[in-house]
């Protein structure tokens, strides 16, 4: 029964739960992967756009410087005029804090400053615009210096250096916000943090925190180095291998951050956008949770419905199994109760009909068996009693005629005694079958009891032309038994053997001892018993003989059972039969057993 339940559970699991779980797992995985990638791509786009804006922002400053340089280069200006031009541009472009013009040898020509310029010419000649490392001034504002080489007729003609305020860069970075807690930061090429959108993190700028060890800063630096060594174009460093440019890490406060980066082309800065993963993947986590809840509910519903339907499916089977087991155990009155109108109900009805039929059949069989048994008893009684009665009757009729014959009177007495004894034995058998005689259990010397019975049966064996051979085990093996009941058992077995053995045959009585068990065997060389009749040979009124009630072996088994022993039979048709008795050996009690044995 458990197996069908197990199989049904496996059916439900295989057909419904497993696909649902698999679907859920795939959905969650797909959702997670999709949303994560979407968030990462979104943040990457933010960083890339910021990097592009910074590129344009710095390129604009360089272009303004180039236009100033063009003015200074193409006209023959006096020094005071150059100073006015520089000053006017500083006033016009607030982003320029200072503009200073240096001659070919680094000689100061003009500056927008009232006093001495703070800017310096390049230490080594440069041919391309150069952007110096960023610094944070005392007003907490980031600045850098942009140096523009000047040429006249293709020859080096000094430098225009501008101190550029990156205040707008800060504003630009401040405007970048991803969600509520995602901010951007800008890292200079040396790793110096120069802008951070998170108000709580701005102190890191003031302390000139170096982020060269940041994974993404290092990745961007490595990529630039690789591109330089490969000689590849670095104009758009964000286009390939972007998978390198994101990471997740735990910050000093224990928050997990999603960090993505984009490289600025010129200057070689890095834009990093960081967002706590709790927020970045918050929607994904929420959707996962919702999906998980839905799938769990679906699973529970599936299991509940499976249980309900499975129970309604298995219950009739269980009921039928119970009924079948009851019938098999002989309780033919048992019925099954299967409600409904389906096939199971019909099967239940059929089962009940079958049980009714079986009950009726059993009653018929019993009735027939009873009739057969009564017939056998009747025939046995007629046989067992009619012969002695007939003998007695014949003897009586003869005694009338031969009463004076002294010899015949003696024969008459013997015949009458014998036949009455036979009648008495039949009647005792019947009485013992109906009401077993009480046994008294004492240690009994088996060898002695067997020898006594053999001696008493010797005459009968002789008259049947059968040799009675007795083989006793050495010593005095004692068992706990009733010497008279045991004698009756021995006699039944020997008598059966004599009757089954043709003249000239041999009956062997033997005792032996093995593993504290005493065995008594009665073996004959008779016709043997067919195998199919051996199974119920110890039952009442079962006999292989043509005559008699067949109660001897049944009574013998009852006695052996009462004495706690075993009785068995082995027979081969045409070779003979062996009955074996087996009892537990006990210690003798000489002072008791001897008188008892003597008395028996």
């Amino acid at each position, binding site marked *: 029964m458990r197996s069908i339940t197990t199989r049904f559970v496996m059916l439900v699991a295989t057909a419904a739960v497993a696909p649902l779980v698999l679907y859920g797992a795939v959905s969650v995985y797909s959702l997670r992967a999709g949303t994560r990638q979407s968030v990462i791509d979104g943040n990457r786009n933010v960083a890339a756009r910021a990097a592009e804006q910074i590129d344009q922002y710095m390129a604009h400053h360089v272009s303004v410087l180039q236009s100033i340089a063009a003015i200074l280069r193409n006209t023959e200006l006096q020094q005071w005029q150059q100073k006015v031009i520089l000053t006017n541009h500083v006033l016009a472009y607030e982003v320029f804090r200072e503009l200073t013009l240096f001659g070919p040898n680094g000689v100061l020509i003009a500056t927008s400053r*009232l006093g001495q310029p703070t800017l310096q010419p390049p230490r080594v000649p440069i041919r391309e615009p150069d952007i110096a490392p960023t610094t944070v001034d005392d*007003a907490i504002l980031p600045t850098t210096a942009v140096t523009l080489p000047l040429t006249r007729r293709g020859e080096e003609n000094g430098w225009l250096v501008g101190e550029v305020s990156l*205040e707008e860069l800060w504003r630009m970075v401040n405007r970048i916000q991803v969600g509520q807690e995602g901010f951007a930061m800008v890292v200079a090429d040396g790793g110096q943090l120069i802008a951070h959108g998170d108000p*709580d993190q701005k*102190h890191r700028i*003031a302390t000139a925190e170096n982020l060269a060890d940041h994974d993404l800063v290092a990745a961007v630096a490595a990529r630039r180095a690789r591109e330089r060594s490969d000689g590849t174009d670095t104009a758009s460093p964000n286009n390939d291998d972007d998978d390198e440019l994101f990471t997740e890490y735990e910050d000093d406060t224990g928050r997990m951050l999603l960090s993505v980066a984009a490289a600025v082309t010129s200057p070689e800065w890095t834009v990093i956008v960081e967002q706590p993963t709790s927020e970045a993947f918050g929607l994904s986590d929420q959707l996962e949770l919702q999906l998980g809840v839905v799938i769990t509910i679906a699973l529970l519903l599936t299991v509940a419905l499976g249980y309900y339907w499975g129970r309604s499916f298995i219950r009739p089977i269980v009921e039928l199994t119970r009924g079948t087991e009851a019938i098999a155990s002989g309780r033919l009155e048992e019925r099954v109760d299967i409600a409904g109108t389906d096939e199971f109900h019909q099967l239940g009805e059929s089962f009940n009909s079958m049980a009714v039929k079986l009950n009726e059949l059993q009653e018929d069989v019993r009735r027939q068996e009873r009739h057969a048994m009564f017939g056998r008893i009747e025939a046995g009684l007629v046989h067992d009693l009619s012969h002695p009665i007939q003998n007695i009757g014949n003897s009586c009729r003869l005694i009338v005629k031969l009463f004076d014959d002294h010899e015949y009177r003696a024969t008459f007495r013997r015949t009458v005694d014998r036949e009455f004894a036979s009648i008495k034995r039949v009647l005792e058998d019947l009485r013992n079958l109906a009401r077993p005689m009480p046994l008294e259990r004492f240690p009994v010397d088996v060898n002695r009891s067997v020898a006594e019975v053999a001696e008493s049966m010797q005459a009968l064996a002789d008259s049947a032309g059968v040799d009675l051979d007795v083989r006793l085990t050495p010593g005095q093996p004692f068992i706990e038994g009733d010497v008279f009941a045991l004698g009756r058992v021995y006699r039944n077995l020997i008598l059966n053997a004599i009757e089954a053995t043709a003249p000239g045959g041999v009956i062997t009585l033997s005792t032996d001892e093995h593993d504290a068990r005493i065995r008594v065997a009665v073996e004959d060389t008779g016709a043997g018993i067919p195998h199919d009749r051996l199974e119920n040979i110890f039952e009442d009124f079962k006999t292989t003989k043509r005559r008699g009630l067949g109660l001897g072996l049944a009574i013998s088994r009852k006695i052996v059972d009462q004495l706690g022993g075993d009785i068995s039979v082995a027979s081969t048709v045409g070779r003979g039969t062996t009955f074996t008795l087996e009892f537990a050996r006990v210690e003798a009690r000489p002072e008791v057993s001897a008188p008892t044995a003597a008395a028996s």
Partner: protein
Amino acid sequence: MIQGETPKAGGRAVRSSPACRWRRGTVAVATLVVALGTACGAGESPQQSSEVVLSIGLAGAGRGDGLNQLVLQLTSDSLIRSGPDGRIEEMLASDWSVDPDGTAVTVTLRQDVTFHDGSPLTAHDVKTTLDQARQSAYRVGRDPLLSDIESIKIMGLDQVRIALSRPSGQMLLPALGIYIVKQRGEGESIPSGPFILEPDTVEETTLRVNPNYYQGRSDIDTVRIKTFSSVRNAWAAMMRSEIDFLYDVPIGARQFVEADPSVRVFSLDTPYAYALLFNTSRPPFDDPRVRVALSYAVDRHAVLDRAFRGHGSITSGLWTSHWVYGGKELIYGYDPQRADRLLSEAGLYLPTETQAAGIEGFPNRLRFETLVGLDLAPMEPIALIMQQQLRQIGVDMETDAKPLFVDVAAQLLGDDWDAALVPLNMARNLSRLYAFWHSSQPLFDAGFNQADAALDRLRSSVTEEDVVSSAGAFQQIMFDQAPGIFLNRPEQARAVSRRFIVPDTPERDIIETLWQWQVDEGWSTK
């Protein structure tokens, strides 16, 4: 005690800082810059609370002066103070009166004031402090009316009567905003303010709460004042919650500091104005038409936007919220055509092409040199804008950039200068007007004496009507004579952690109410 000296720590004498000694040598400009109206605030008694420490960050070039000034404000109280509208407010003095003829002032003291050593405030302490002040050239230089004091008489434990040599009682009152201390031994002075100066430490100055402060014990148990080499470092310390109060937020950084949600920024109008001061004793600035012309030639709004990012206001150079001016403000508008015309009327014509070719540098109708102190960040953009704007009317303003507090201040004491770009005290305390603009005073030698009569009349005004009338006349003269081009009055910003609840007192420096600050228990640190 004289304002500018450091009070004694726990009864021990503390030497004046080198900055103080240096400042005495450069009285004029230093006075202009640091005389910020330093009277301490009055208020209700604060609630008692558990141990609270407030850390203040000071940074920048002037942090030595700033530290001294801040310590004075937090440890000392004056007799009276001038409110935002110039009205006299009580501090240690509970009452005062000016004799009808203006020749005497009677001051009555509070009776519940004790100094840091536990001794009560007496009329004797007031007399001693005032006597020292009127004998101090530094103090008299700042408040010339102190020299009018003829004698100070103790009228009892809680009253002094100040006799004057002239009827200047009304003008003397604001000059009495002097920190009163108890003298104990030579050079040892004990103040009575809400906090007590602890002996100096190497890295920071520590003030402990004065548990017996007469206005009530502050909730703040300890004030630590840390100095930083740069505003950047101070700001970083504030962002790291190492300090609660950034004393001075630079204009450039203000936007970013304001963006910090853990910080509240407070603005206050500074009591000084940036101005281009003319030496009126030298031509062509001895001609008021030239001075007026140049006053019309400068776009003050442009200067405000560029140099101060709009944080401030344009100004006439006077504290016009003072009650004596009645809300009247006289400011030159931007009118370059009128400036051009006035210069021509003064005989300063634009050069012809021929003339221009002979002029070295920018062809001009007028060239003058301006002293520019580079110590203050706004100076350079102000000078550049003025240069640019003056060029438009043919005026070449050359600049001589040098340190303000040393070189410029020293040069102003002589006659060898044309003009100077300086911050000028706007005189919320009217007695300062006399110090700055009366030709007899030695703060600087600008040769300007056209306002002397009006100032003398103001000094001797007995009634409020006289004061208003005299002040109005002075204001008009200042406008008409234009001794300088008065530009902008910048805002000053202070940043305080939201951990503290700062009383909302518009127009007052939050330092005045620092002792009343409370901790916001609901504010969680970052």
